[in-house]
């Protein structure tokens, strides 16, 4: 194969394109939550699951010293596993309030779920379309986000809360 200018140009072009594609895979897209910690949450507004007229907003969250926002659904098996830690947290620690966000779920199933296992939440909001969850970059529940009274995210937990995560939360709020 003879080497010519045109061949070099075409091959460099191809390499450049492929390189950009490869780099493109690393671009932050909307759903990235790497930088969530330390950021202030905004546009937070959620309707109560059984009462569409009752809302929770940023103002309400500011009143709490700490708020744990927990994403759950009745169809999610690991959510059952983490439930006892949430109950513990709500019973033992008064400085932390828990807001549950019911993710892509049926109202009735969610209510039954809480009846069966107990309700650790101070407020249960519904996010049947998963829109609010996008703000927090939720891609697989359960996930939880811990914020302080300035609405700054101090911890994000992907997956169910276990003993280690539970201790971690206690340490943070001390």
């Amino acid at each position, binding site marked *: 194969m003879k080497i010519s200018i045109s061949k070099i140009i075409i091959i460099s072009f*191809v390499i450049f394109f492929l390189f*950009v594609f490869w780099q*493109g*895979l690393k671009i932050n897209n909307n759903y990235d939550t790497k930088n969530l910690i330390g950021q202030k949450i905004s546009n937070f507004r959620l309707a109560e699951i059984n009462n569409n007229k009752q809302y929770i907003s940023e103002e309400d969250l500011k009143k709490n010293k700490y708020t744990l926002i927990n994403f759950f659904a009745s169809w999610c098996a690991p959510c059952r596993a983490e439930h006892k830690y949430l109950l513990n947290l709500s019973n033992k620690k008064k400085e932390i309030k828990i807001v549950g966000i019911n993710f892509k779920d049926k109202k009735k199933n969610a209510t039954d779920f809480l009846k069966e296992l107990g309700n650790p939440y101070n407020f249960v909001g519904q996010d049947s379309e998963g829109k609010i969850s996008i703000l927090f970059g939720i891609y697989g529940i359960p996930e939880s986000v811990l914020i302080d009274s300035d609405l700054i995210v101090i911890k994000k937990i992907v997956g169910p809360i276990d003993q280690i995560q539970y201790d971690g939360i206690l340490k943070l709020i001390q």
Partner: protein
Amino acid sequence: MLSNIGIGLVVLVLVLSFFIIYIASLNLRTSRQTIKKSIYNLSLVQTTFIILSFFTLIIGFINSDFSLINVYENSHTTKPFFYKIAGTWGNHEGSLLLWINILVVFSYLFLVFNHDHDKKFRLYTLIFQNILILGFLFFLLLNSNPFNSIYPIPLEGLGLNPILQDPALAIHPPLLYVGFVGCSIYFSAAIASLLSGYGGKLFAQSIKTWVIISWSFQTLGIIVGSIWAYYELGWGGFWFWDPVENASLLPWFAITALLHSLIVLEKRNTLYYWVIILCLSTFTLSVTGTFLVRSGILNSVHTFASDPSRGIYILLFLSLMIFSALIIFYLNYKKETYNFNLKSRETFILANNWFMAFFLVTVLIGMLYPIFLDVLTNIKISVGPPYFNIVIIPLIVPFMFLMAIGPRVSWIKSQNKIFYKISLLILGAIIINLLIFYFFGKYSFLSNLIFIAAIFLILYSFLDIKKFINNKNKTELPRIIAHLGFGLLVFFIGINHQFSLEEDFNLKVGEIKRTNNYEINFENIKVRESKNYKAVIGNFKLTNIKNDLIQYLNPEIRIYSNPETLTYEADIKTKITSDLYLTMSNVSRSDYYNIKFQNKPFMIWIWISALMIALGGFMRLTLKKNED
């Protein structure tokens, strides 16, 4: 259970691929001019197994077998039967299996139907097609397996996104896949042709049918997608220059260029290397499009749940494809000399190719520029319709003139006879355009040119039809229909764009809104329970002020339960001359509904003329060999 059967079948197909490659390589070295019977048999078994694996997945969806993660994530027991089946290819993993099905089926059919072509060429094609099959099989098994199982078995699935529950969208992906993946066979054939030296006219004949098949299906697939967008998305538009729409256009431009230059190769035995380049780039662009869509680099209505490892795999595969194709091409390239007369049909076809190349590059730049900018400088921008409209639309004018004249110019060298006819037709087109301009309203200079060019193409096609009726030359008809379809398409899109009415306002039940020509009375709302959704239906009485014609429109807000989603269903009243289009959406915490009312002239004609283009392709397929 289904999981094991499915994976077993796919693994068997993989093993068969290795066998086919091995035996075909051995067969290449023998001096006999026939292909071993065993290769046919292996190919047939491979085809059977891959089809069976796809049926296994379909059965999983029909029975709502949630032990398969794929079924659990994309289906639900209450889903209508039709959409359970459509759910099979409405997701990444299932559609990849469909993709492989098409690769395998085309591989077998190409082997069988090209029996009168060179043995070496067919064997190489088979080998390369099987390399492609292997690549995608590994991708399926290692990264995107639709047969992965889940334990404990969930009782209920997560459901299929309601906006995908539409008949047009159920058939849109399979059509496009036949179109895009069908290109793989002449990618393989092009490489085989370079390696075996089986080029020129005979090569053109061997791939012609396959090019027409994939072109027709791509065209139809794109149109069906567009129809879905119009009826389902509720925005009143049908083409948005959305990145994924663009990704589907890239291979379409390449294949349209190929479809035309292939005729030159067949009739005049020239442009061979150019045809090879187009064969190679059509499938490369299809895979590039797939990469951009599936890796999550592009965000659009088509976004699949993205997964970076998927992107890396496809990118790796794409790089291998491009580099091996480039190397094989360069090793076998010999300089070709072209000696075309300016007034010959081959020159006009070449002009078609320049335009296609231009459109392709324009769309490619518009699509990739934001990605490049983001990667290289971290600046985020989006390139929208204005860019595409400004760059592409003016070029449509000369394109349509050439498109009308080209097929009437004879091969090698033409006489000047047609000049008189052309001037007469242009004059006719100008007059018709002036009449529209005078009676129906003013539009820009560019729009005038567009209308003139489109009318010219339409008139010319009518003359062609008249000629066809006289000489009954069947090979001409598909081309005439497709070209006429394109002329009509541009014409009706132009009319639609110029004379559409759009109103956006808020209304409460019982209120009346007057626009220029219509009185819109929001009479009442009703609630209807359906199998998998609840619908809030508005009842609107539309009175045409000019002629007192009364019509009722009933747009819906649908609340789907699995997954819980709101969709807005437009009510569209289609008439021969125009579409009335009404959508309503709830304004949160108020009694008002947001109403979008549109009157869009000649909508149905846009679909008819677009379908004529695809019809041209399908008609060409029905012609028998001796009629060529």
